[in-house]
């Protein structure tokens, strides 16, 4: 079965080509279902391979097939093909699975769009590229997919090209990604030639792994850093995240598929795929973790200041990606991939839910004009609720398991640091806050929508709600693949990925803790040395801490957005203590409001303006403008007068002759 790995990207490619060629001939329904079928088949294939793998011993779970041999330069030739192992399989299943649901959803969502067929063609193209990226067996394949997803996401973001904002957003995404790709490409070159200088001409992951020891420390740090620059671009990390919020201009399914579930995670996948290199590059890992946690925190603060529900989700995506980078940055690759997967579920769900809300509110995006929708669109409401709980990291939901594993690793792993843990945990609380701010704002209180909208608020059709339900199920169940040992789980996920990502030794993590940098962690670790019990206690405590932070975040949100509207009793029962405290001291509301809302909203707003728009966009647009200006200046030399051209030639000739004749003298 594994020999058929190449089928996985092939199906969407076929769908793309077929619909692209004959789409105009056949009906809308046919186009959409062909597209869905193509993706579904990829999903089936990957699942089949997955079950085949379960039969095999762990170390036998890798298979490569070379499609053709690609010449890098002159005599050096590189076999290109596909590689299936635990990692690429997880990615393939996640991508194709989520993509399939979103395809189905789009049938309903895009129904009345004139570009219906084009949409599915481009979706298939994207899925094809994404699957190529995750199943490729060499950096070249990865780069092809990398560029491919960039291109197709550019098409999809700009899907409603009639809106200038849309096509500009598309362009912005493309250009910013090119900057990242530039780093990525340089990294590939550097790796290729440093290995080549040792006589190993290869870009194949397996062979790179074999000969990685040939590289010296600085070189690896440089190479891995260049790769990370690429990841910054694709996965929207500081400072290259600016394109992602704008990318919300695209249709909501696109935001859901590309900017939540799949493409933006490519960077994480790449680092996980090259984990053997990163493990040899402590400096880079520190950079990765730091950038990751900063992004997570920074994006969360901005999330406070947003009213546009898709913008909120966009910034939360950036923030969650930050988490994944923290994970891979501290060497907890499987945790990163785990969070990647769960995030794909609940964030995909959140976006589709947002789409469903827009559908109900006839395209409205401003949460200030919503509210009280929970009765009117129950399915969306419940699924959205589940997603929020998941992203907030409430025990029992997938987000909890993945996020807490990351937090624990951030604390305990030798690459980790107490500061990272603190920021990450704080971010977890903030995430919970703004997600529920959104949730309450949309579904509770009384409806602030204009009358005409209010009338035809309606639940979305089955074709949209069913995917929501499935994703909701996954958003809960997905987590149980990776129940940490401390909770009596076996962390199957970690073990499944172990052959590729190392890890698979949950207990060992604590042993590393002694190597943690800060006083605190080592203090903890000393207790941890006591043995499994102490380590478990530590892990439990941290877990509790983060859960409490999340709950605090939620309750604040609730206090500010629900309390005055009188909330469901069971919700009160959830936090009786906290409720009493807050209720008895009424002005605490204002206090919270002042501290959290005004303060942080201002901060977020300021950050948004100064950093986001001011500095980063300034740089990006500035360079473009500068070049344009120079170009305009250079044009003036093309005067159109033939003799001035001749004069230019004479000057050139004088320079050339002068240089060549006199250079030897110096």
């Amino acid at each position, binding site marked *: 079965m594994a020999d058929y790995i190449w089928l996985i990207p092939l199906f969407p490619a076929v769908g793309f080509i077929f619909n692209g060629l004959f789409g105009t001939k056949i009906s809308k329904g046919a186009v959409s279902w062909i597209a869905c079928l193509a993706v579904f088949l990829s999903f089936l294939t990957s699942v089949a391979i997955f079950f085949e793998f379960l039969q095999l011993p762990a170390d036998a779970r890798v298979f490569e097939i070379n499609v*053709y*041999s*690609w*010449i*890098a*330069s*002159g005599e050096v*030739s590189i076999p290109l093909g596909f590689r299936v192992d635990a990692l690429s399989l997880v990615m393939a299943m996640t991508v194709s699975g989520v993509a399939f649901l979103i395809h189905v959803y789009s049938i309903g969502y895009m129904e009345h769009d004139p570009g219906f067929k084009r949409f599915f063609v481009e979706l298939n193209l994207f899925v094809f590229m994404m699957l190529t990226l995750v199943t490729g067996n060499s950096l070249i394949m990865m*780069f*092809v997919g990398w*560029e*491919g997803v960039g*291109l197709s996401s550019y*098409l999809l973001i*700009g899907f409603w*090209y*009639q809106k200038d904002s*849309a*096509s500009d957003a*598309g*362009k912005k995404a*493309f*250009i910013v990604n*090119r*900057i990242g790709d*530039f780093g990525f*490409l*340089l990294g590939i*070159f550097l790796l290729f*030639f440093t290995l080549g200088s040792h006589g190993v001409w290869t870009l194949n992951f397996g062979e790179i792994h074999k000969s990685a020891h040939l590289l010296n420390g600085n070189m690896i740090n440089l190479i891995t850093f260049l790769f990370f620059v690429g990841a910054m671009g694709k996965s929207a990390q500081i400072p290259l995240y600016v394109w992602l919020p704008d990318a919300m201009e695209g249709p909501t399914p696109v935001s859901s598929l590309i900017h939540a579930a799949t493409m933006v995670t490519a960077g994480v996948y790449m680092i996980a795929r090259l984990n053997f290199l990163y493990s040899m590059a402590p400096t880079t890992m520190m950079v990765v973790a730091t950038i990751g946690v900063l992004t997570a925190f920074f994006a969360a603060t901005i999330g406070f200041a947003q009213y546009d529900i898709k913008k909120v989700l966009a910034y939360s995506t950036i923030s969650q990606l930050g988490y994944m980078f923290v994970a891979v940055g501290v060497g907890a690759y499987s945790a990163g991939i785990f969070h990647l997967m769960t995030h794909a579920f609940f964030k995909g769900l959140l976006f589709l839910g947002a789409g469903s809300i827009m559908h109900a509110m006839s395209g409205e995006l401003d949460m200030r004009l919503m509210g009280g929708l929970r009765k009117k669109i129950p399915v969306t409401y419940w699924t959205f609720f589940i997603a929020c709980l998941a992203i907030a990291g409430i025990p029992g939901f997938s987000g909890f398991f993945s996020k807490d594993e990351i937090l624990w690793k951030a604390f305990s792993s030798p690459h980790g640091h107490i500061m990272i843990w603190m920021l990450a945990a704080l971010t977890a609380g903030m995430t919970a806050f703004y997600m529920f701010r959104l949730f309450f704002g949309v579904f509770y209180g009384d409806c602030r929508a204009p009358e005409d909208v209010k009338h035809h608020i309606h639940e979305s059709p089955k074709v949209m709600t069913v995917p929501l339900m499935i994703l909701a199920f996954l958003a809960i169940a997905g987590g149980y693949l990776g129940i940490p040992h401390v909770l009596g789980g076996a962390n199957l996920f970690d073990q499944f990925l172990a052959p590729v990502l190392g890890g698979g030794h949950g207990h060992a993590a604590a042993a590393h803790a002694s190597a943690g940098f800060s006083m605190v962690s080592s203090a903890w670790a000393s207790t941890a040395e006591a043995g499994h019990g102490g380590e478990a206690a530590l892990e439990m405590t941290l877990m509790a801490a983060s859960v409490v932070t999340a709950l605090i975040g939620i309750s604040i949100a609730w206090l500010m957005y629900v309390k005055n509207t009188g909330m469901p009793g069971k919700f009160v029962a959830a936090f009786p203590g906290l409720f009493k405290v807050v209720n008895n001291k009424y002005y605490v509301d204002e206090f919270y409001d002042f501290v959290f809302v005004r303060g942080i909203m201002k901060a977020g707003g300021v950050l948004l303006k100064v950093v986001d728009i001011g500095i980063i966009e300034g740089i990006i647009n500035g360079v*473009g403008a500068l*070049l*344009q200006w*120079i*170009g*305009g200046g*250079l*044009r003036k*030399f*093309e005067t*159109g007068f*033939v003799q*001035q*051209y*001749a004069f*230019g*030639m004479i*000057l*050139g*000739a004088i*320079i*050339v*002759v002068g*240089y*060549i*004749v006199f*250079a*030897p003298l110096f």
Partner: protein
Amino acid sequence: MVVQIPEMDFGWIVPEIAMTVFAAVALLLTLFRKKNSTWLFVEAMPLVGAIVALYFTFQTWNGNIDIFNNLYTIDNFGVFFKGLSLVILILVTLLSYRYIDREDMARGEYYSLLMFGTLGMMIMVSSNNFITIFIGLEVMSISIYILAGLMGGNAKSVEASLKYFLLGAFATAFLLYGIALIYGTTGMLDIREIAGYVNSGNFMVTPTFMAGLALLIVGFGFKTASVPFHMWTPDVYEGAPTSITAYMATGVKAAAFAAFLRVLFTAFHPFLSGWTYMLWILAVATMTLGNITALKQDDVKRMLAYSSIAHAGYILIALTVGDRTLSSTVLYYLLVYSFMTIGAFAVVIILGRQGSPNTGIESYAGLAGRHPVIAAVMAVFLFSMAGIPPLAGFMGKFYVLTDAIRGGYYWLAIIGVLNSVVAAYYYLRVVMYMYFKEPEAEIGAPDVSIGSTLAIAISVVVVFYLGIFPRLFLMIAHTSSAIFM
């Protein structure tokens, strides 16, 4: 004494002879055709001639031999470029059929001059002697001086012709002076004799000799449209008939680079240190200036002119590295470049009308909506030029940058990559207009003909093929450039 001219030599130059004969026949047919009788025979001449010549050219593959007292040589390098220029001739001819009616240019003269131009290229790329190189160069150039101005009534065309002619003659003078100086210091015109002489101990480099080399660079720099000898390019490319622009941008550039490469790598390779940094500067200047100036162009034809300058810069990178074993890159890049350029200009042609070329970028707005196929192929060519995998352009750039890095020219590689980022912007701009803008002015149905369709189809296929399966042609390029080792 009896001068020996072995008759058998003529067996090797059948392609050239064929070109000459067919060109002459085309001319005569035009003269003696009845009023309003068919043009078919005249129009068939270039295709038939090219195919015949192509056939005989391939016959000479691997027949490494010097003929006519070493004035002329048959080697795979020459064969490669002869083949390339003949294929270019075929494609350009296909493009021209409808276009010529539209702009009513003189058919017979047009086709026979095309063939004479190709003849010039063929001579130029397969000669080892400055005399024959010069003759080939001039046969090519003079044909094109005329072709550029063939749209008699059109002021721009005349202007293009004038500019190209004056500056071309001017550049020729520099080239000749360079040759003269080299002859003056070595007393030889055969580049391999020169190579042998300079490698033998008893040659000492004089400033005169180096000045000669420098002037050669100037002369070839003009024909290859490298900065700072590029200034004619935008005007001439814009003014000339579009089919001829395509011909100039591909055929002339390829032939000039071929001769340049041969001269540099044969006669002057010992002085690598002398010219490599000069070419480094030229390469950087050419890439950067071409790309940056292209940013501000609103006329697609002119934008393509600047982009062709930029591409010359990329090729110069490969020359700069000056590694004999890597010279195949130049061949491969020129191959790729020719197809995507011709394709792009073909699209420009079919969007034109009589009297209104519609080359302004605004005429491309919303093209995807009205003519999805045309927009798609144009997008393919543009993306290929921008160097986006898996299209051929990416491969070309990749090999060039690879060479640079292997040669240790890291900065050159970085500048090259940065340039391709800049380039992506203005290619993308056209794509944006085609896909993401509403049509401003109705430009009417495209002027598609079987010929142009065929040409475009061929180019698209090749662009994909060379991008995905570069192996075969890379190997061919490799064997072709083996003569330098």
